[in-house]
């Protein structure tokens, strides 16, 4: 396959790319640097290389239940959300990619509009709803709440992938005697595994980084890590070292997820009838 190797055609391009990536990494490296310094050194004076190296901040993180349990909470509801979003979005995306039905285009856009509501005021009714149905402060509650913005995205991405798969495959399977559910699970799902991987990544990502909704509908049992991080201010000021250590650790799960889906992204998708 003859992709032009940009490196050959544009010799400087690769260099510029890696320079950009290096710049991209600077704030992250700086955060990592902070996480292995004592607080006095962070606030004391500017120094490029940490003077004293300590892992106390990480030890605190993994021994203090408030920290590591909220870390686990985030992982649990984020994974739950990715699974649930996929389960409801897969059939819907199939319907959008294969059939025309009354109001299909409007439904598609309506789904998207749910990403567009400014959260500030909507948070109060969210709190009330989850309170009244008994999902307040549960992982399931946060997972359902995050479906609000992840399901539309999941439907959109999956629909884009599915539209690239010819309908003849469905028709052939039907002639071979496959029922729709059996065809969907046995033939169709394996064909779009890269779509599922990519969608799961985006769902994971948007759910993991969201703070406002997750913080509003939880208090203790399902409290997200990001919310715990907003409460490091004590009488002694902000504990920057611990905050930075937690920050570094919040990148880890996402980095693992992207590692698993990197080949699916590299395989390419165009998301639309080009």
């Amino acid at each position, binding site marked *: 396959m003859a992709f032009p190797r940009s490196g050959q055609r544009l010799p400087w391009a690769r260099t510029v790319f890696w320079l950009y990536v290096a710049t991209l990494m600077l704030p992250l490296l700086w955060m990592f640097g902070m996480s292995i310094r004592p607080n006095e050194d962070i606030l004391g004076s500017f120094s490029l290389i940490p003077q004293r190296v300590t892992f106390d901040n990480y030890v605190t993180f993994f021994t203090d239940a408030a920290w590591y349990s909220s870390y686990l909470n985030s992982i649990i509801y984020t994974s739950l959300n990715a699974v649930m979003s996929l389960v409801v979005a897969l059939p819907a995306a199939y319907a959008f990619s294969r059939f025309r039905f009354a109001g299909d285009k409007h439904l598609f856009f309506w789904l998207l509009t749910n990403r567009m509501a400014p959260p500030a005021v909507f948070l109060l009714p969210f709190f009330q709803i989850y309170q009244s149905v008994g999902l307040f402060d549960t992982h399931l509650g946060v997972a359902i709440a995050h479906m609000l913005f992840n399901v539309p995205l999941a439907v959109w991405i999956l629909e884009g992938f599915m539209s690239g798969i010819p309908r003849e495959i469905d028709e052939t399977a039907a002639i071979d005697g496959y029922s729709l559910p059996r065809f969907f699970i046995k033939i169709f799902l394996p064909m779009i595994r890269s779509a599922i991987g990519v969608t799961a990544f985006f769902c994971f990502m948007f759910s993991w980084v969201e703070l406002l909704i997750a913080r509003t509908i939880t208090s203790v049992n399902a409290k997200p890590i990001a919310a715990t*991080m907003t409460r490091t201010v004590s009488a002694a000021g902000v504990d920057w070292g611990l905050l930075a250590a937690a920050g570094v650790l919040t990148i880890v799960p996402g980095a693992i997820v992207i590692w698993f889906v990197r080949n699916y992204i590299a395989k390419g998708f165009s998301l639309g009838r080009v």
Partner: protein
Amino acid sequence: MSEQTTVAGSQVGGEVVPATPAGGSGAAETRADPKPRNNRAWWLVLPVVVSVAFTAVIPLMTVVNFSVQDVFSPSDRIFVGLEWFRSVTRDPEVRAAFVRTLLFSAQVLLLEIPLGVALAVVMPRRGVWMSVALVLVALPLLIPWNVVGTIWQIFARGDIGLGGWTINNVLGINFNYTLDSTDAWITVLVMDVWHWTPLVALLAYAGLRSIPGPYFQAAQIDGASAWATFRHIQLPRLRGVLTIAILLRFMDSFMIYTEPFVVTGGGPGNATSFLSILLSKIAVGQFDLGPAGAFSLLYFLFVQILCYVFFTVLTRSGR
């Protein structure tokens, strides 16, 4: 190289499925005959409608109810008609924040979309460097938004942050985002570019990788320049992914809240007080649910209109 991009004629569950009659790559996407009309497809979308409606419709109704009343408590409230809409749309602070947010979104789109596409073009395409590049580029996306704010709050500080320190001491420019409005704006903008360009880059990269090789061979035979290849072969085929990228970036930048709130808190003065920050001040700070409700609805209306325009233009153009 097995860089099969479309699925036509590929392996299916162990058995080979015949390719589309038209064959070749991308043919499936341009099939002429329309999709069959079948209203039973509604059963397939029902779970989505139910799950989203649960969290979307009830809050929307509640906010509409807030917007026409002065609410002290559920039992103690007064109907005020459209009064809040009148006061919100005439509030100079709201109008200023609106212009500021619009300007910010425009700058975000103008910077991030070209930069993201450019990155995608020069990103390595195979081997271990491809993996490394993808993971590193995606990292900023995976950081909780308040942590992004915290990172930049420190990083841009002139005394203890690498970024701010370098600008002050190496470049010799006086930079202080807590005192100077321009510096604060630049900090928030650079932070957003840092944070979100990777999303555009990832989507554009995937879009580029889906372009079948023969297109490039044809271009090479014709002796097309790198720019011509990009302009006439790559860019048109990025429409699908760029539609998503532009819509997501517009929505999220127009509603940006957490990051600037952590870094600047809307200041200095009002320099970075975007609509969402102002809205939060009214809704959470002063607990004025009525004005905040009216504010939210107008905000929502505007985002929806712009998204509809983008969506329509991007998906229907060229048809």
